[in-house]
């Protein structure tokens, strides 16, 4: 028989205001096995824990139930306290009477009754608890970073600097991501490429970093400390060991009509191309959809031009398998498609552009060599209208409900840069709110208004229509309470950003969760912002939520620290609550093996002694290091042989019985 102590926490007034804790303590004493019960103001406090420890020693408790907040909060605290005075930590159970009870009920009587029931279930479980010992598993001292934008690069650099190997997997032919496309960065107006490219070069040159560009993660298996990833290295049709990145082939290539991704499709590129001058790795890549050789079997000009003999039309995708201790997701974002926003006429008018396209139009390496020209007739725009919150903060199916966070600041930057370079240009910004929470951000925005004379108009644009070569913009000025009409030369839309489409696939692959907007979910919004809910998976950059460059870099470094903290351990403690098969009940049917999402179950032939009868049987065997304790096998097992330690079928049934009693 167990000797169980029950401790009821007030949690200040969080629990005690809705639950009669004294009554719960009294009821506890009537439960089988309970030898002690007490209520206390804050069980998690130093003195609360002391009360628990002293009681364990004095009464010789073999089990403890703490009725308090969610086990996510303090289960570890109480288990550690129990362990410190010699009680097996898995003999401690939490009855959640805060989140599951006091916070959601108003009536004291009802809440108290429910708290008693929850306590009763926990006591029933502890009566059947057994001491468990956690195993250890080795940590592979290498990290995988998925995505090679500024987030991925920064995370990789920091991990590598700490002395651990890192692989960056980037699906595009070069690392650099969106930041490589930007012209200047707020609030300091320094050149984006000038601060990014040294980091790209550092990453490429670092002996601990390996870059798999033009590659995608195809499969991930394993668990924290021991993941195995399959990486598909897509065929470049160029031998990367031979290519020197001279670019001769790109000049000779006769197929020049493919949209240039790096310039947001504002100009075209050749079929064999190098994304941009500072690309890392600086290697040519053939786009088979545009290449004449791949379409007709003819041409072959690039092969003839290449002195290094690097062109290889027969190259195939390559599959690489690597093991990792930790994985960082840094898959970044894209600008939303604007096809459904007919009111702004983005699809109909070439002079209605997105802010990212404007970045390219103002960039010296862009399609216009840095001179701001209208896409339609290549003239200087004299009147420019910026529209904020396009697709952000809305509730229509085409809208995103969240604030994209970066648009207010980059629009202030764009308007300022334009007024600086072309003072004869009038700039109007239609805004709903100007949001500038960040160091030196508000000052930056005020500079655009006060120093550069940018016209900020409080209101949204309702319609943009082509009118005699101009764009007629209908907006509202809510402070004047007027509808305003502006004939503009160029309209720039601050389009919402959304997670890259790969995020959803990768989240599924890594068994980590995403929210309704496909952003990856952090383990705790305040206290664990760079960890995912899945152990060993970390988040870096916009894949977790909209953020600007300074914030992304900060989060990227934070994720790196978490990875380093994991890789620094030689071994990690496993979860002892794993599945176990009862040899005498198992009939070797394979049902558990089929449902196991982690591949933790295998079969072996073993001699068993079944009530004096010796025979060799095919039996399920659980690899405890791989098992995550999800319990799928216990449900699938037809003979009831599978059981989850710490959550055995008997324990669960005892809890149900206690609740229904």
């Amino acid at each position, binding site marked *: 028989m167990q000797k169980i102590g029950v401790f009821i926490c007030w949690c200040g007034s969080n629990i005690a205001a809705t639950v009669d804790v004294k009554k719960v303590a009294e009821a506890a004493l009537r439960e089988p096995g309970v030898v002690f019960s007490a209520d206390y103001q804050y069980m998690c406090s130093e003195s609360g824990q002391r009360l628990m420890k002293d009681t364990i020693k004095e009464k010789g408790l073999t089990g403890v139930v703490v009725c308090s907040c969610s086990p996510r909060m303090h289960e570890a605290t109480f288990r550690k306290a129990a362990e410190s005075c010699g009680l097996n930590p898995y003999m401690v159970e939490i009855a959640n009477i805060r989140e599951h009870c006091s916070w959601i009920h108003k009536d004291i009587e009802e809440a108290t009754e429910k708290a008693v029931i929850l306590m009763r279930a926990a006591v029933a479980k502890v009566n059947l608890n057994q001491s468990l010992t956690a195993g250890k598993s080795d940590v592979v001292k290498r990290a995988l970073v998925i995505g090679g934008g500024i987030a991925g690069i920064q995370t990789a650099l920091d991990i590598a600097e700490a002395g651990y190997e890192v692989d960056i997997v980037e699906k595009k032919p070069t690392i650099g991501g969106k930041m490589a496309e930007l012209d200047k960065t707020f609030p300091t107006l320094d050149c984006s490429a000038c601060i990014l490219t040294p980091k790209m070069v550092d990453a490429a040159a670092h002996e601990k970093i390996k870059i798999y560009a033009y590659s995608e993660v195809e499969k991930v298996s394993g668990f924290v400390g021991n993941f195995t990833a399959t990486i598909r290295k897509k065929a470049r049709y160029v031998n990367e060991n031979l290519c020197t990145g001279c670019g001769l082939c790109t000049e000779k290539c006769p197929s020049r009509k493919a949209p240039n991704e790096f310039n947001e499709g504002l100009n075209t590129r050749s079929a064999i191309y190098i994304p941009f001058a500072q690309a890392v790795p600086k290697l040519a890549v053939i786009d088979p959809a545009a290449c004449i050789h791949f379409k007709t079997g003819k041409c072959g000009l690039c092969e003839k031009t290449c002195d290094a003999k690097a062109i290889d039309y027969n190259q195939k995708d390559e599959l690489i398998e690597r093991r990792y201790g930790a994985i960082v997701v840094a898959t970044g974002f894209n600008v939303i498609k604007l096809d459904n926003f007919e009111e702004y006429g983005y699809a109909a008018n070439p002079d209605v552009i997105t802010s990212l396209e404007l970045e390219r139009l103002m960039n010296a390496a862009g399609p216009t060599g840095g001179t701001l020209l209208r896409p339609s007739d290549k003239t200087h725009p004299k009147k420019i209208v910026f529209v904020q919150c396009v697709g952000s903060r809305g509730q229509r199916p085409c809208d995103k409900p969240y604030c994209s966070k970066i648009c207010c600041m980059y629009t202030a930057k764009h308007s300022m840069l334009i007024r600086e370079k072309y003072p004869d240009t009038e700039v109007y910004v239609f805004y709903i709110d100007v949001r500038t929470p960040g160091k030196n951000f508000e000052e930056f925005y005020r500079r655009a208004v006060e120093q550069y004379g940018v016209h900020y108009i409080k209101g*949204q644009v309702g319609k943009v229509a082509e009118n005699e070569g101009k764009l007629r913009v209908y907006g509202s000025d809510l402070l004047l309470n007027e*509808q305003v009409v502006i004939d503009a030369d160029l309209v720039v839309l601050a389009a919402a950003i959304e997670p890259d489409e790969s995020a959803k696939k990768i989240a599924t692959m890594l068994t980590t969760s995403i929210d309704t907007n496909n952003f990856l979910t952090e383990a705790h919004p305040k206290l664990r912002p760079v960890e995912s809910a899945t152990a060993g998976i970390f988040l870096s950059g916009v894949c977790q939520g909209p953020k600007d460059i300074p914030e992304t870099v900060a989060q990227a470094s934070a994720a790196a620290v978490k990875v380093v903290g994991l890789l620094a351990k030689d071994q990690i403690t496993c979860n002892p609550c794993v599945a176990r098969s009862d040899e005498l009940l198992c009939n070797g049917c394979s049902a558990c093996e089929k449902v196991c999402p982690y591949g933790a179950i295998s079969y072996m032939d073993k001699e068993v002694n079944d009530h004096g009868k010796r025979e060799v049987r095919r039996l399920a065997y659980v690899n405890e290091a791989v098992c995550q304790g999800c319990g799928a096998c216990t449900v699938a097992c037809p003979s009831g042989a599978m059981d989850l330690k710490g959550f055995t079928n008997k324990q669960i049934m005892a809890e149900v019985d206690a609740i229904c009693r």
Partner: protein
Amino acid sequence: MTDLQKQIENIKRISGANPEKCMRCGKCTAACPNYSEMEYHPHQFVYFIENGQLDRLLKSDSAFRCMTCFACVERCPRDVKPAKLIEAVRLTLIRRKDSNYLKPDEIPQKIDEDLPQQAIVSAFRKYTK
């Protein structure tokens, strides 16, 4: 509940719209093709109803100036449905006792030869109880 509150609740009920969802972007007014004809504009209908200033809307003829083209409903990023609120204000006005805007006797003098008959019938439906 005061009469005013009752009327406002009624407007919300008939329109099925929720003015509290408005984030004050003004896109409805920006999109309004009949802006110059209206004393109060779509965003003001939303704001006044939200803030209990219905009487200002009831005193104005703006509700009848709205062409119910639904541009504001179409454009509104928050699904506030300004035109439906305006329609509800119009119904509130029409349903007041003894305040028909159109009486059958007045129709003959008002008829324009070029006016399609369907428009007359629809106006009669719209402006009487």
